[in-house]
């Protein structure tokens, strides 16, 4: 008996204390299907049991926020009758197992979260972390993930407008694939929620048939990888973007016609989570006959059906009188829509199999009583609190301008167009800035205003200090939005961390979240959606803490955006410096030459600076702009010189030290610019002039053509077999 129980706990990945809690709640042992339901809904992936305590503290409200956590995605009011929904989600584990399908279904899943709410998807972004190019399978993983993202997004017809790709050995055996989607509501588009309502209403299953895909996927995502990962693979989930495209059109149509009471997509833990969450949120019961669920494989058991993660499926609630009209619309798009159950008044989820009750539970008990853990962590101490000036003409590699050539030709500093040229960046005919820019921009359909999309989190800053890295995940992308004239509005996040049962991981998690949260509050950019991905560890090695973020910003128009590169001759090049925090940066890390810096956690005055910068940009006070990022000032200047216009610069600062924060601008009117931008903690220095065809840094000189050639070589040097 004992052996039997421990075997069961292992199969369903339920711990002994959790098992005891379940027995307490039920007043007996779980039986039959209940095992599977608890396993899925109490998994880390579905229940957020290790992170909930901390997530509750997040800043999520502002006058613009119409919907935050608790729904499929957050919604922000843009004014003028326009709204957007957006969210970011991880698909790390599936992408490591089967990179093409893992990444593709990641994109598919995040799109469903968006159009489930009634918003038409208008932009995609992706945040990728890979291991060293030479690591085992890495070329295959990079290739598969990029093809998968492109294969899905291109076909479904949503442009990918921005992205980030990082490389570090900590991702060698656990890559990160985070996808973000943005959806648009025009004046007449309704918002649909997932709260089941109306006793007697139909529960309707729409979309693809259920197969064996990803059974037990949610609980797998809540475990670490080990050498046996291959053996415990569930059936790989296959994404079909063509089917999803049909589902988008059909769903948006029935929502517009007001035929839907509530709707939720079947994501992690498939039918289980959608049924239980819809019932729980609505405070109603649902009775559902699983034998009515359309199947691809007739041998599926009720347990398989409840746990299947087949893609492109939705569960919706509809009034019986509207069902015929709803079915007609789905028929038109060649999709299944069938009644599988009804809404009841007894607050129970009752599952039937060919008319016979096989399970009856209170959703409230399973969903709301899921365990919450206060995992052990320590209060984080900020690194380098003692003030040191930003190094001038640094020594060693950080001071050696010639290192620029090495950086540009490495996979860290080289061109990423091999990746993003495989994504359709312009379908929708609304893209004003594609992936070659720091901020992706789409034009809003009705008001013609610009929506900026940018990703944050720089793993090398996270590795330096998780609290400061958390701050940077919000502040750096906010400055990027501001530079191009977008007022930062709100944030989504995807918190990728290691094993939460380890104190070290939890300490990083809490510190990063505190850093992010404090500055979201300061910048009035609430966190409105997101997900947590724990257990990103393999053989006891955690990935770098990686709380990726996605920010959106608003600009009055898409005309006259500042360029990322220099393009006007004989303009003043201005270096804006905010605050006095700095560190030896990415070059210091990868060359292992030095590790030093000064961090000031207040960044006093940052709110004012972001606002002033946004306005100055909108007023057209500078022609080109770029936030100085990894590899510091000289690398940023080189990136701005790739289009043929360079600059002549005289500057004492060490070329590769990274300062929090600096921005390069080119302008005709330095005095107007300084009047507009000078504020607390901000200094402004003219460091040179733009000039044709070459970049000069003190006594060093490169032809812009040479810089471009070096930059283009970086990818091929590391991924020769992929680069044609």
């Amino acid at each position, binding site marked *: 008996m004992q052996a039997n129980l421990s075997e069961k706990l292992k199969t369903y990945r339920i711990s002994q204390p959790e098992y005891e809690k379940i027995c307490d709640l039920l007043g007996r042992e779980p039986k039959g299907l209940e095992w599977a339901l608890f396993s899925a809904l109490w998994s880390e992936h579905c229940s957020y049991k290790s992170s909930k305590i901390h997530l509750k503290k997040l800043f999520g409200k502002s006058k613009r926020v119409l919907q935050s956590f608790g729904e499929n995605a957050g919604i922000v009011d843009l004014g003028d009758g326009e709204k957007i929904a957006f969210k970011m989600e991880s698909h790390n584990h599936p992408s490591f197992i089967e990179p093409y399908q893992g990444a593709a279904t990641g994109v598919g899943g995040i799109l469903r979260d968006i159009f489930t709410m009634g918003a038409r998807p208008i932009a995609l972004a992706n945040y990728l972390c890979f291991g060293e190019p030479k690591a085992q399978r890495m070329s295959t993983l990079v290739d598969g993930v990029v093809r998968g993202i492109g294969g899905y997004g291109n*076909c*479904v*017809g949503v442009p990918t407008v921005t992205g980030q790709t990082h490389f570090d050995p900590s991702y060698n055996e656990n890559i990160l694939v985070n996808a973000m989607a943005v959806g648009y509501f025009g004046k007449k588009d309704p918002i649909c929620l997932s709260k089941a309502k109306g006793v007697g209403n139909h529960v309707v299953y729409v979309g693809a048939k259920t197969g064996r895909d990803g059974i037990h996927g949610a609980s797998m995502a809540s475990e670490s990888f080990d050498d046996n990962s291959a053996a415990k693979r569930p059936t790989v989930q296959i994404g079909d973007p*063509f089917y999803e495209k049909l589902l988008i059109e059909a769903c948006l149509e029935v929502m517009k016609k007001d035929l839907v009471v509530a709707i939720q997509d079947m994501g992690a833990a498939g039918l289980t989570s959608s049924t239980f969450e819809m019932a729980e949120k609505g405070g109603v019961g649902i009775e559902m006959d699983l034998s009515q669920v359309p199947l691809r494989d007739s041998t599926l058991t009720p347990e398989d059906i409840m746990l299947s993660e087949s893609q492109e499926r939705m569960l919706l609630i509809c009034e019986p009188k509207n069902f015929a009209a709803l079915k007609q619309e789905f028929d038109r*798009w060649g999709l299944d829509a069938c009644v599988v159950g009804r809404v009841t008044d007894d607050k129970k989820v009752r599952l039937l199999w060919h008319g016979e009750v096989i399970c009856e539970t209170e959703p409230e008990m399973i969903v709301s009583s899921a365990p919450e853990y206060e995992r052990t962590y320590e209060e984080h101490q900020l690194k380098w609190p003692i003030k040191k000036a930003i190094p001038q003409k640094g020594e060693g590699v950080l001071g050696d301008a010639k290192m620029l050539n090495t950086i540009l030709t490495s996979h860290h500093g080289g061109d990423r167009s091999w990746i993003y040229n495989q994504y359709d*960046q312009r*379908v929708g005919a609304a893209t004003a800035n594609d992936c070659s820019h720091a901020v992706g921009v789409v*034009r809003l359909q009705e008001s013609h205003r610009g929506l900026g999309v940018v990703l944050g989190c720089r793993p090398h800053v996270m590795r330096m200090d998780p609290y400061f890295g958390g701050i940077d995940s919000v502040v750096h992308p906010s400055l990027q939005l501001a530079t191009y004239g977008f007022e930062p509005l709100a944030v989504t996040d995807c918190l990728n961390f290691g094993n939460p049962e380890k104190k070290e991981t939890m300490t990083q998690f809490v510190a990063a979240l505190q850093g992010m949260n404090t500055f979201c509050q300061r910048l009035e950019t609430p966190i409105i959606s997101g997900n947590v991905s724990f257990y990103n560890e393999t053989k006891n090695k955690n990935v770098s803490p990686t709380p990726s973020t996605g920010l959106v910003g608003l600009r009055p128009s898409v*005309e006259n955006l500042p360029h990322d590169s220099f393009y006007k001759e004989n303009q003043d090049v201005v270096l804006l410096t905010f605050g006095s925090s700095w560190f030896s940066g990415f070059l210091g890390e990868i060359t292992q030459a030095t590790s030093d810096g000064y961090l000031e956690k207040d960044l006093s005055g940052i709110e004012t600076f972001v606002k002033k910068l946004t306005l100055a940009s909108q007023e057209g006070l500078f022609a080109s702009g770029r936030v100085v990022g990894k590899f510091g000032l000289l690398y940023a200047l080189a990136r701005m010189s790739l289009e043929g216009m360079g600059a002549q610069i005289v500057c004492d600062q060490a070329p590769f030290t990274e300062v929090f924060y600096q921005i390069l601008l080119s302008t005709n009117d330095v005095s107007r610019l300084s009047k507009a931008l000078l504020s607390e903690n901000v200094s402004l220095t003219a460091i040179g002039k733009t000039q044709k065809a070459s970049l000069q840094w003190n006594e060093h000189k490169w032809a812009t053509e040479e810089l471009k050639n070096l930059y283009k070589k970086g990818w091929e040097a590391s991924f020769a077999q992929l680069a*044609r």
Partner: protein
Amino acid sequence: MRKVGVLRFPGTNCDRDIWHAVEQVGDTPQWLWYQDRFNPKDFDSFIVPGGFSYGDYLRSGALAAHAPVMQSLKEASELGYPIFGVCNGFQILCEAQLLPGVLMRNSHLRFLDTMVDLTVINAHKRFGQKLEKGQKVHMPIAHADGCYYVSDDDLKRIQDNQQIYCTYVRNPNGSVADIAGVMNKNKNVVGMMPHPERAMYEWMGSCDGQKFF
């Protein structure tokens, strides 16, 4: 005001973009659903938009070429109505044998989205009236199957009959003779891989596309 029929197949995803482009130049678009037939006389011309009809499964355009709406489109072609296919629309017109040749997987075997320069070789009487021979235009491509192929004999035939619509200045996908767009023998049907509807405003990076509608 000209009425332009815009075809929609399951998986078409540039339909709304074409719709806006048609409106932008002052014409009136009207949807034509893949399962429906239509009377050509009700229209001035027709556009088959891009996307992934039927997910590009089997071969790009192959399944769409057999949809009921294509029967009517063939009749329209026989009557000499102007028909314009963009990207997947071009692939569909080739698969339906309304245009010569076929579009194969790009020579580097990957999807490619990038801006390209084109040279106009022969203008079309309706789609691109304002274009001149030899004119250079700038717009994006976004496709995996854009490598145009015809046999040597057919190539000579379409060259002699002035059926080549436009060519790439720098061939991005391995197309025979750098061909980016072609016309049929009667020169009423035209198709091209690049996307003029994505080059309608300066903020898109080019407004050369306006001249194509």
